[in-house]
């Protein structure tokens, strides 16, 4: 029996978080959200009119059903991210904030220095902060100490679909973390989501791979299964990979 995922005092059963960017229409996005079983949905503040309940994205994210996780993507430094987060909350966006400080517009890689700075300010403000970071174990600990609700290391650059290229560092983060580890960015296939979960990640966040799939709702369903399968495998206790074959019945068992 699995324990629930707890983020900032809130309890979730789904371990797949979903993004809302890059979809061909809000309707397709809505259907994909349904199929994914996700309970936490991230929305780029730069894309939505947070003040407007009729906004094409927001109107399709049922707040009764989903926890809205506004993100600060596009922010270049701590000051911008904090300003955006505060405005979002003032407009009814809630206490959750996915902190993204990505000064380079091409690979959208997170700035560790500004992310920590912004996290400290937002936590003082009472936000539930989920920071997007490079797979840097020490930064993860620093953020955890500052009081973030999770850490969200990237598997590979956002939108790259390249899977988990930061495996060794993510393993260390998982081993050392006292807050949930959500592998965010770069997961391009359900098998990547399963891999992250098998490694012991608490959850994954997926957007591009679902949004640009031939059939986004079907792909969302596939990611749901991948995430669940990976989680179940982790709980069941995976055998360690070995270089040589090992017989199921030990050859030297008779010696005891």
């Amino acid at each position, binding site marked *: 029996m699995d324990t629930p995922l707890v983020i900032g005092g809130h309890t979730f059963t789904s371990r797949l978080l979903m993004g809302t*960017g*890059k*979809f*061909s*229409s*809000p309707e397709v996005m809505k259907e994909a959200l349904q199929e994914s079983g996700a309970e936490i949905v991230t929305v780029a*503040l*730069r*894309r*939505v*009119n947070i003040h407007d309940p009729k906004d094409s994205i927001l109107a399709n994210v049922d707040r009764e059903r989903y926890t809205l996780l506004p993100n600060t993507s*596009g*922010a*270049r430094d701590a000051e*911008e991210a904090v*300003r*955006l987060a505060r*405005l979002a909350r003032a407009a009814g966006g809630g206490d959750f904030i996915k902190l993204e400080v990505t*000064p*380079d*517009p*091409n*690979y959208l890689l997170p700035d560790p220095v500004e992310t920590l700075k912004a996290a400290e300010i937002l936590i003082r403000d009472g936000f539930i902060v989920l920071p997007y970071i490079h797979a840097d174990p020490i930064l993860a600990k620093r953020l955890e100490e500052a009081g973030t609700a999770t850490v969200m290391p990237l598997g590979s650059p956002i*939108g*790259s*679909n390249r899977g988990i290229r930061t495996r060794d560092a993510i393993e260390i983060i998982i081993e050392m973390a006292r807050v949930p580890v959500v592998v965010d960015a770069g997961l391009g296939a359900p098998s990547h989501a399963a891999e992250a979960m098998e490694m012991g990640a608490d959850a994954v966040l997926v957007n*591009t791979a679902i*949004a*640009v799939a031939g059939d986004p709702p079907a792909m969302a369903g596939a990611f749901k299964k991948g995430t669940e399968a990976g989680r179940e495998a982790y709980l069941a206790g995976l055998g360690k990979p070995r270089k040589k074959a090992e017989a199921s019945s030990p050859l030297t068992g008779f010696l005891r």
Partner: protein
Amino acid sequence: MTFYDRIQEYSWDKITEQIHRKTAEDVRTALSPGTMDVDKFVSLVSPSADEVLEEIARSAQIITEQRFGRIVGLYAPMYLSNSCTNSCVYCSFNASNKMDRETLSVDQAVSEARHLHSQGFRHILLVSGEDQGMVSLDYLKEVVGKLRDLFDSISIEIYPMETGDYRELAASGVDGLIVYQETYNPYLYAKVHKAGKKKDYRWRIETPERGGSAGFRRVGIGALLGLDDWRTEAVYLAMHARHLMRRHWRSQVTISFPRLRPAVGGYTPPCPVSDRDLVHMLTALRVFLPDAGLLLSTRESKEFRDNMIPLGVTSMSAGSCTQVGGYTSDSASAGQFEIADHRSPEEVAETIKNIGYEPVWKDWDAAFIR
């Protein structure tokens, strides 16, 4: 080292020669997986690549979908003034053309902007001829100050300025800069820019860098298509974009594809660029620069624009008017160029949806910088 300094080691003619020497084998190497470099890009735009255009277009589509998703941003240009001190042979705003010259008052600018806002636009591009006397820094700051509550993103396409002036504009709420080199061929550049400050090739080519230094979030470049060989312009654009991305890594580079259209003064483009050429140029640049914003304006026909949506275009203007004050009055003055896509913004948005993409009116938030 500025881009101007960098290109001193190249020559227009040598690059052109290099492009035309590329073989089918070079093109295959360029299309095989691996890191893209300028030499591979040269192969991609060479005549030898003409027959693999479909393959380049497919790559461009996949890359664009991956990096940007199935979305197209919408923006509107707003002409502040057609007053100009330059004499560019291809442009109807040419100071020696006899035409009515108008500059919007701040109030007129606001009412034009309100009109665009009511149509749904949240990204606006302020355009003018090059006349500092009519469109001064203070005037621009005043206009931007009045517009910033209406728009999430305000870009400018005016005359090249000093970094300090750009900083003031950035502080007042401008987040994007567009400045076309028109042609990267310095000899032709001197020929077609007969008078005014614009004669200075170096001053112009270093403008995007001054914009990057001033902190603009988006810096746009472009070549006027039809002036010279599009293949060589494309190589310079690719090098320019990459230079800007390395040096001003916090700014997104955008590239526009202004193709010469009939204008007052009857200029005939010496090197016409066909639809096929334009597809080739745009898709090759997409393959080389996966994250660059690629813009296509209403200079192009609706059929062409609709077909280009899946091929790499990330932003489009819609319902544009290139006359000063043309959105809210029956302006008598000539526009900068002739519009080929006359659909309303709503119609363009509807078509984008029908093609299976989402029209995006807002992809920026003023709160980032203001």
